[in-house]
């Protein structure tokens, strides 16, 4: 390949390079200041900040990196940089920064301060994996980035080793993840066999041809979907989620539930759109290549996911676990945006992700702050906590309401756009099912409120006054949730500007 191509490809992956660099720096720093590691988090923060700067810098740029010149007439590369990718990278960046702040105030992480260097290094590994997942357009890179992400998260899931449940979570996550990625890899190999290429664009053009063994192809697709489905924890590939979320340190749980989910969605969307969409008309409706009935699969999967998530969440007593199920349910809602196979659905997904980032991280943050004090996430320990610690109580209430999707919170806007997308393509039934689902979800969210406010506070109820920093952190998440509920113009505009997926 020519150097200039390589050179401009380097330009395109500057954020990733920064990430890798800061990863190395972190490791070194870990070695250097092995006495006092107070600096490490700030280094990490700076690293992410710089990355963020480069990502923002990528706005408007679009192009392929690492185009293969060999025997291929088309020059599609391994990675694609486009506003869609940038959007998700920003989501990841935002959540990463928040996670770093979380970690600073998390007692779990404070307990392991001597290994904090590795902790952040691994987080950077995850971020790097996500970045590549988001922009990968080649099955191999997809697989590699997915593994990179997974491997780091396996370790992090069991990182603290404070309780037995940590290592158990790690093991489950590992085995489950390894198997799914194994299946995915096998699927990839089949695709490679059928088409002779691993590049999504090439595959797209090849499967439009007549002579493809559709059965093998769908098997391959389903296997690959198993891999992705496990990342976005959509039923029936979600089983690891509750156990791991409950077992992992809460910061990592939060990170998994937002960042890696978003990366997974970015991957899924890009995979489907670049590989299977043949044509997009002016109304933004996608026409699929007639090899695989994505729509029905997605409808089935999404309804199954949200129903299962909501109904299982109903009788959870551990808040972390309940939030795990609720995040499964939200994966279901998010899939609705893909079900409709229109740009409007895509728009809805993007909007929902911003909202989801805020409210889900917020919920986890409050749970964490409370757990710091009473180190339990059991709902019965929340009785009357709304009175003893008003700020946390009210904020958690707001986050949960937003997760339910009631106005005037951002959650409502997210749901609204999803339903708008559904109604627009006249999928009324699906919309109704989804709405009823959100009624069900109301129960377990409200149940928390009930414990916080309607049950009397006992003398054992702790009164938690957050430190100035954490207080700010909470507000940073609460205020947008409310503001976007009332004034969501900028939100939507941002999302609208990020719909471009290169290639069409």
């Amino acid at each position: 390949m020519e150097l200039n191509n390589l050179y401009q490809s380097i330009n395109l992956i500057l954020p990733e390079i920064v990430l890798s660099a800061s990863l190395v720096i972190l490791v070194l720093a870990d070695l250097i200041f092995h006495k006092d590691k107070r600096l490490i988090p700030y280094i990490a923060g700076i690293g992410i900040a710089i990355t963020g700067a480069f990502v923002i810098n990528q706005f408007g740029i679009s192009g392929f990196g690492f185009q293969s010149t060999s025997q291929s007439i088309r020059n599609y590369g391994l990675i694609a940089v486009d506003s869609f990718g940038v959007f998700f990278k920003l989501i990841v960046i935002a959540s990463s920064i928040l996670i770093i702040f979380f970690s600073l105030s998390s007692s779990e992480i404070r307990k392991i301060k001597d290994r904090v260097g590795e902790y952040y290094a691994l987080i950077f590994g995850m971020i790097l994996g996500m970045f590549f997942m988001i922009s990968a357009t080649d099955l191999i890179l997809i697989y590699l980035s997915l593994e990179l992400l997974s491997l780091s998260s396996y370790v992090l899931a069991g990182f603290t080793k404070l309780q037995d449940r940590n290592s158990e979570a790690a093991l489950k996550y590992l085995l489950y993840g390894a198997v799914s990625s194994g299946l995915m890899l096998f699927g990839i190999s089949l695709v490679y066999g059928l088409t002779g290429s691993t590049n999504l664009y090439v595959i797209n053009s090849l499967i439009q041809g007549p002579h493809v063994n559709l059965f093998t192809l769908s098997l391959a697709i389903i296997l690959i979907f198993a891999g992705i489905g496990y990342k976005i924890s959509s039923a029936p590939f979600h089983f690891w989620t509750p156990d791991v979320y409950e077992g992992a340190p809460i910061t990592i749980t939060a990170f998994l539930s937002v960042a890696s989910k978003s990366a997974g969605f970015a991957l899924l969307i890009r995979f489907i759109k670049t590989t299977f969409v043949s044509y997009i008309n002016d109304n933004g409706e996608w026409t699929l290549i007639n090899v695989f009935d994505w729509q029905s699969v997605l409808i089935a999967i999404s309804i199954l996911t949200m129903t299962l998530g909501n109904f299982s969440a109903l009788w959870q007593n551990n808040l972390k676990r309940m939030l795990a199920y609720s995040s499964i349910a939200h994966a279901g809602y998010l899939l609705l945006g893909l079900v409709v196979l229109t740009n409007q659905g895509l728009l809805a997904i993007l909007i929902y992700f911003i909202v989801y980032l805020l409210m889900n991280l917020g919920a986890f943050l409050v749970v964490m702050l409370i757990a710091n004090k009473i180190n339990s996430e059991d709902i019965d320990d929340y009785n009357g906590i709304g009175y003893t610690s008003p700020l946390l109580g009210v904020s958690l209430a707001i986050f949960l309401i937003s997760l339910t999707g009631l106005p005037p919170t951002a959650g409502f806007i997210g749901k609204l756009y999803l339903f708008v997308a559904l109604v627009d393509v006249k999928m009324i039934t699906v919309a109704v099912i989804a709405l009823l689902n959100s009624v069900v979800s109301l129960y377990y969210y409200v149940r928390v409120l009930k414990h916080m406010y309607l049950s009397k506070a006992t003398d054992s109820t702790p009164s938690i006054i957050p430190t100035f920093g954490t207080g700010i952190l909470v507000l940073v998440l609460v205020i947008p949730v409310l503001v976007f509920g009332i004034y969501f113009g900028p939100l939507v505009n941002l999302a609208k500007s990020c719909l471009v997926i290169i290639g069409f």
Partner: protein
Amino acid sequence: MMGFPILTLITFLPVLGMIIILFLKKEQGNTIKYTTLAITAIQVVLAIILLTNYNYSAAGVYEERSFQFIEKFRWIEIGGISWLGTVKIDYFLGVDGLSMPMVLLTALISFIAAISSLNINHSLKGYFALFLLLDTGMMGVFVALDFFLFYIFWELMLLPMYFLIGIWGGPRKEYAAIKFFIYTLFGSIFILLVMIGLYFSATETLADGTKVFTFDLLQLMNSGNYTADGILSPLNPNNLRFVAYLALFVGFAIKIPMFPFHTWLPDAHVEAPTPISVILAGVLLKMGTYGILRISYPIFPDITRDLMWWIAIFGMVNIIYGAFVALAQKDFKKLIAYSSVSHMGYVLLGMASLTSTGVNGAIFQMFNHGTITAMLFLIVGVVYDRAHTRGLDDFGGLALQMPAYTGFVTVAFFATIGLPSMSGFISEALVFVGAFGVDSIRVITMISALGILLGAGYMLWTLQRIFFGPLNQKWATLKDIDSREYAMFIPLTIIIIFLGVYPSAMLDIMNTSVNTLVNFLHNNFTVSSISGL
């Protein structure tokens, strides 16, 4: 018309109060109470200012220029992309004859409820903050002219209500609260769906001539704005307007509450603290019927015309059924709750008639029921505060012990029965006159008239069981009402009697709009008016 944004003020003033309260210390109980009182009082003053500047001859209903105190500016605008037109949502407030009475009612009832809240004794801060938030929600629903805005306000009341019942309520408060919550949410989901459906069915032409989808209620009332293929567009041969209407109607009917969706009401009332029952019965129930008048009727006149007979039937069922069930109650508050069910039936009946008299009566009945039932719940509150029981058979002879109280009770009860010279009579009479004038529902009306008898039955029976007969010595120590309670009862009594003697004071406010509305209902969305496009 004053340029001053008075509607915004009257709507969001409580939020301001809420913020103030949130900054107050927990210990400053009285400050909190009197802040709330002041806020609601100012609201009343603002309402009166509205009334004094109100133009009685402006119709409103469907034409924007004849709405009053309009405040309209672009709230959310999202630049267009070819395949998804500009999304625009207006912040659009205004009042006409349909909403003006409700605004007055809301201000009044909130004020009364605030007075009655003065004896709330635990976790005041939260209570009054939520109280004021609720107030904003209610006021907003009545002044919003944009469906989206309307929906936001509609949902806004949900949570405060949930907590107000759930935290300050009676023994089975959790059950009642969650039940209220679920029912209302269930209803509002249908409203949401219809809202989205309408959004995609009608476009509004902006100043620059571009057509955009719209949530603007007034635009949705214009059959000319509908697109050819919108799922709720009358032009679309296989549209879903009928289904949508039913969905919307159920959404509102749950709030009314209309049989068979009424069962949340008794529980909610019995468990809620007195001031909240007052607001619940005084204002919240009206939102259902108001929603139907403001949204279902003018946006779906065609379906409305087809279904008026059914609405009348449901009205009748509400009246008779509610009355009968009330007759069997042993709990004072439950009895009042069911009497509300019965009396909201009159509103339905009046609306179903689609005649000026009927609709006038319906709206007037909404107002009167607001004041009268508020008074009834206050009455229950008074006796419950003192005796800590509501069992109808636990009392007897209270008239000897609490004469002044009994005086007010008599007024309220006879107002409920629909005694002439009290406001209730006029509205019920108008409802009957209107409904009776329509051939198709004349028989229904006659049957409904039984409600008058049953009403007298359970009310007088209650009066006798609690107040007459020999004094039950257990209550020989009860105090008669104090100044706070006088302050709640006297204004209501005056209003009830004043409107009974001089109903035009209220009827003239709504008359023009109602006539316009009825005209609109009969002449729009007809085959001709649509094919004429």
